[in-house]
């Protein structure tokens, strides 16, 4: 597993750049990840999505279904792709410090 520097601290990432130490996640790390995912600078709308994903993850240990994300943030998928060009999973979830989605998803 590779290490990299994000938000000024050293952190483990997988081969697709998802952080492997979710407890170390903070806003500065999110912003550095957002730079890689073309979601920088992060606006209030970006944070709304990221914070929702983060909160859901802390509660349920997984990412919410995409439809739930759409409903709870009030952003349709098109809007989410505008905010996070690499998509809800590879973009938004990565920035929110969630692990890479697994299973038949």
């Amino acid at each position, binding site marked *: 597993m590779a290490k990299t520097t994000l938000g000024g601290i050293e952190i483990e990432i997988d081969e697709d750049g998802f952080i492997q130490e979710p407890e170390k996640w903070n806003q500065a790390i999110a912003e550095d990840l957002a730079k890689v995912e073309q979601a920088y600078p992060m606006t209030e709308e970006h944070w709304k999505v990221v914070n929702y994903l983060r909160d859901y993850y802390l509660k349920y240990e997984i990412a919410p279904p*995409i439809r739930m994300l759409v409903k709870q943030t009030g952003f349709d998928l098109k809007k989410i792709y505008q905010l996070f060009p690499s998509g809800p999973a590879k973009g938004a979830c990565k920035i929110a410090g969630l692990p*890479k989605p697994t299973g038949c998803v």
Partner: protein
Amino acid sequence: MKIEDISKNTEQLVTIESKDLIPLPYPYDDPANEPLMKRLTDDQRMRYEASLDGIIAIGIPKPSSKEEEEVFVKKFLSGLEKLLTPENNWTFLQPLYHSLEYCVKCQICNDSCPAYLASGKKEIYRPTYRAEVLRRIINKYIKKRNKLLLRLTGSDIDLNWTLVARLGELAYRCTLCRKCAQVCPLGVDNGLISHEIRKIFSQKMGIAPKELHELGTMQQLKAGSSTGITPKALGNIIEFMEEEIEEKIGRKIKIPVDKEGAEILLIHNAGEFVSWPENTEAFAIIFDIAGIDWTLSSDLVGYDAVNYGVWYDDIQLARIAVKHAEIVKALKVKKINVGECGHAHKAMIVVADRILTGELNIPRESALPILADIVLNNRIKLDPERNNFPVTLHDPCNMVRLMGIVEPQRQILRKICPQFREMEPNGVDNYCCGGGSGFAIMQSMNFPDWRSAVSGRMKLKQILEVFHDVIGPDVKKYVCAPCSNCKGQIRDLFAYYNVFERCNIFYGGLVELIVNAMVDIKKPFIEWEWR
């Protein structure tokens, strides 16, 4: 290229080039517009075995010493030896033995293989190629046949690290679709050969794609699902589904969970909950209206039908199969009904029959016949006009070719989709989506590009052909794929070629079309929003 070239220390055996790929129909008929497959970085090439075709599916680390190389080869050989003994391989020895001994090398099977055809007939992808490599290793190193004779008859081979590593990767260039076995006049199953090689790698050498093993079966046994959904998260998702159903059909439905003694335990691929909850919602709506006595399970593993072990490891397969059966027993339901998931059909209904004995051998069925029964007997009021757009059907290999479930889904579509049309070939002669045997979820390095450009190419070709007269974006079209894995592959394939935007072809399951045709819902159930 010869069979024995696989052990030669060449930089790369085969290179995939756009110009060699089988041409696609309009509007993808200009090879100059073929997306470029991602090339491996120098670092990736240095660290992992990539000398087969420049693609990495499993990422076998390069050895750092001669000793390491030897240990690797030795382990493989001892795994192969075990594979040929009844006490170690009672599940598959008989068909393996048949396939090794009875192939007459007529090569008829080659022209049925989607990867071989799509690649422009690259030798290494022939279904008979990896089988012949394995056969030669067995003859020389296990049966210890006379070496001079082997050389004279042109069936010699040198076993070394390069061969074993390439063969391991090559076992993941076959989707186990078994179309080759379908056409073989002798019933030889070259798909099984790939499966058995994967078993040696997993069970003996500890090498398997991370998505199938560590994040797949291991995570499923620990967290309850390969998706990471825990029972607590499931509860939240079910609540969400109930809200969605109420919004969509204007009526509340209670999704039954852990209902003891129910007629049917419906078990979905948990990927549906995350990526396509409309599929699980549609099931709930149909079963509720038709008055089926059913339930979901919230027990660990009981809400995830997947069993990735069926693709690479018999031990993992057995662990999950037994877990599924125990849950059914504890819940005292009459039978399991498997939702729209192809490999779970194979694992749970077919292969598990060799594992589940006595009381654990509970009745296990596909959901397709009961859906056909509901639709054909008008247990739900449906108006086909609501599905008045071109629809085609993808046949998931495990349900259709393997199990012969051909008609129920067609009976439904003929009744509720006035513009239903068949791809050619179809039914048991179908082409795999290209994502079979776990490919659809394997994301390693440049492998996703390979499964879109090569293993999924025949399917894309078929889809474009079947809609050729309405290919423009002005007509919305639907590929019905009643399997989570196939859906994931078709989604990625369409994204790779930008098919949704360019041709307005959408994809989804079967139950969504049924609910979409219901007369008493106001808005269409299918939303035609890319995801």
